[in-house]
């Protein structure tokens, strides 16, 4: 059949135009990161005399080792570790408490069940951004400033994760719970032996999303970590800029930016299927 522009599938020139458009899109997406990478491999003088080069230089090792070991205020290696603890703490914490409460809400009938359900639901309306000052005061009163628990706990309750698990538990056939009861399994045994292993794909998908969420937190660590050694990497980058008119140490800052991206980007690319699934399911 002749292609008169009405065909569903493009061929020939149309196909190449499609590819061209997509490649432009990829370039637009990738350019800032490429530039950051280049900046992290050249020396400071090459950057401060614009235009900076557009191809990588030979200072990569120096810049990255300087960032990791000494950084500007605190070694970036330390900030990476802090971010890792925070991201993993938030994801595992959210998953654990959400699994338990979803299990209770789906598989039991108990007083105030609906009240609890709605309380959890309402947390959707309370992102950390709208309660920063009082939440800060709570953490301060508990003496949790500059601590991992202070970084993690206020972000650990999640209606989204609870709903996701509740939704999944609802799709688990009733007969499985009945079979487990006939087999003599009590509720917790059923939870650990049957429900948890069956949820593992959901758990993994959610972990990917929550890890990125935790890793990319900015405002909260900015508020409660005044001690540079407790900074997370994402908020620590901004702290590396000098106040006043001094020139920023761009190669080190850009090296740090690249380091800040690597873990979550690896998670997204390495677990693309789980990531997409987690994204779609947690947002639906």
């Amino acid at each position, binding site marked *: 059949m002749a292609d008169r522009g009405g065909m569903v599938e493009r061929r020939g020139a149309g196909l190449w135009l499609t590819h061209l458009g997509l490649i432009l899109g990829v370039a637009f997406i990738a350019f800032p990161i490429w530039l950051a990478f280049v900046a992290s491999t050249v020396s400071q003088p090459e950057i401060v005399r614009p235009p900076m080069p557009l191809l990588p230089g030979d200072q990569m090792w120096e810049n990255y080792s300087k960032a990791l070991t000494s950084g500007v205020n605190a070694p970036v290696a330390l900030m990476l570790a802090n971010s890792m603890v925070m991201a993993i703490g938030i994801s595992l914490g959210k998953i654990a408490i959400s699994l338990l409460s979803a299990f209770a809400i789906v598989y039991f009938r108990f007083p105030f069940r609906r009240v609890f359900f709605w309380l959890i639901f309402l947390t959707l309306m309370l992102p950390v951004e709208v309660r920063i000052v009082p939440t800060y005061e709570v953490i301060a009163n508990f003496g949790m400033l500059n601590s991992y628990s202070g970084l993690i706990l206020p972000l650990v309750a999640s209606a989204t994760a609870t709903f996701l698990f509740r939704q999944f538990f609802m799709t688990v*056939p009733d007969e499985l719970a009945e079979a487990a009861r006939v*087999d003599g*399994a009590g509720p917790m*045994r059923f939870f650990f*032996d*049957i429900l948890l292993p069956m949820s593992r794909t959901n758990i993994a998908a959610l972990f990917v999303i929550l890890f990125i969420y935790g890793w990319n937190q900015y405002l909260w660590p900015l508020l409660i970590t005044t001690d540079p050694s407790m900074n997370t990497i994402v908020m620590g980058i901004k702290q590396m800029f000098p106040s006043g008119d001094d020139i920023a140490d761009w190669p080190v800052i850009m090296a740090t930016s690249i380091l800040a991206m690597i873990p979550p980007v690896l998670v997204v690319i390495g677990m693309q299927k789980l990531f997409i699934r987690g994204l779609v399911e947690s947002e639906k």
Partner: protein
Amino acid sequence: MATVSLQDIRKSFGKTDVIHGVDIDIADGEFIVIVGPSGCGKSTLLRMVAGLETVTSGEVRIGDRRVNEAEPMARDIAMVFQNYALYPHMSVFDNMAYGLKIAKTPKSEIEARVAQAAKMLQLEPYLQRKPRELSGGQRQRVAMGRAIVRKPAVFLFDEPLSNLDAKLRVQMRLEIKALQRELGVTALYVTHDQVEAMTLADRMVVMNGGVADQVGAPLEVYGNPQTTFVAGFIGSPPTNFLSPALLGQQGDGQIGIRPEHMAIDPEGALQGTVAYAEALGAETLVHLRAADGTQVTVRQDAAHAIPAEGSAIRVGWQDGAMMRFDAAGRRV
């Protein structure tokens, strides 16, 4: 091995009564089939025996023990579910062994029992597979195996064959029966399929609208139905119901005659027009319309001539074939 007795069992969900008082006594080793259309309460009844539903009133006894309040595992029962309810993440072996593990059975004993059940059910090659890697019939067998290894006093089956295709259903039906005979375990089996009920049951319970209409041996129920519902539900094609007036008799109520007891007979008592005839090979179903519009089916041997559509014929039967029911549908 145990007897099971249900005494005046009632069940309501909120204000809706679904079981209106059912009494059944099951002897040790007996195979009882509860049969009825969907929504008649048969599954609910079974689940109350299993302990998966609470009993609103009445008493469930297994052996000599009242078990109304007992957890399922404490009732010495095993259950085969309609969708098999296999744990999807566990191997066949682990599925069968799970209940035993919970009961803290010694490992060697678990292995021996699973091996024995697997042998009985020809599942030995599949013990390490996951349920999704099995065919429907194999899954069905695993569900059976899970029940067998527990060596329960009572087997409960909730429509276990309804997810299988017709051919497998016949085969598994025979296997279930053979297995129950071999193990000598009391069995309570729920189905909506009257053929399954007829072939499996020592005694069957025909449920209708939350009431046990009739309890008895299959042939007794077939030959001597106590209500119009039973007469219509058991037997295929279903019993013909004629008004007494059509046969020139007095009284209200209905007269039931099974299609297989009718024959085309020029001297017959009933006249009708042939609507159509279905030749099934071994037999032919002749559908006619009587003078008052009633549909009547005659089942005749394929050797007999098939009447032409639209022709007027007469149908007769032996006197003993007539089953009289009163206006309330009860056998007179």
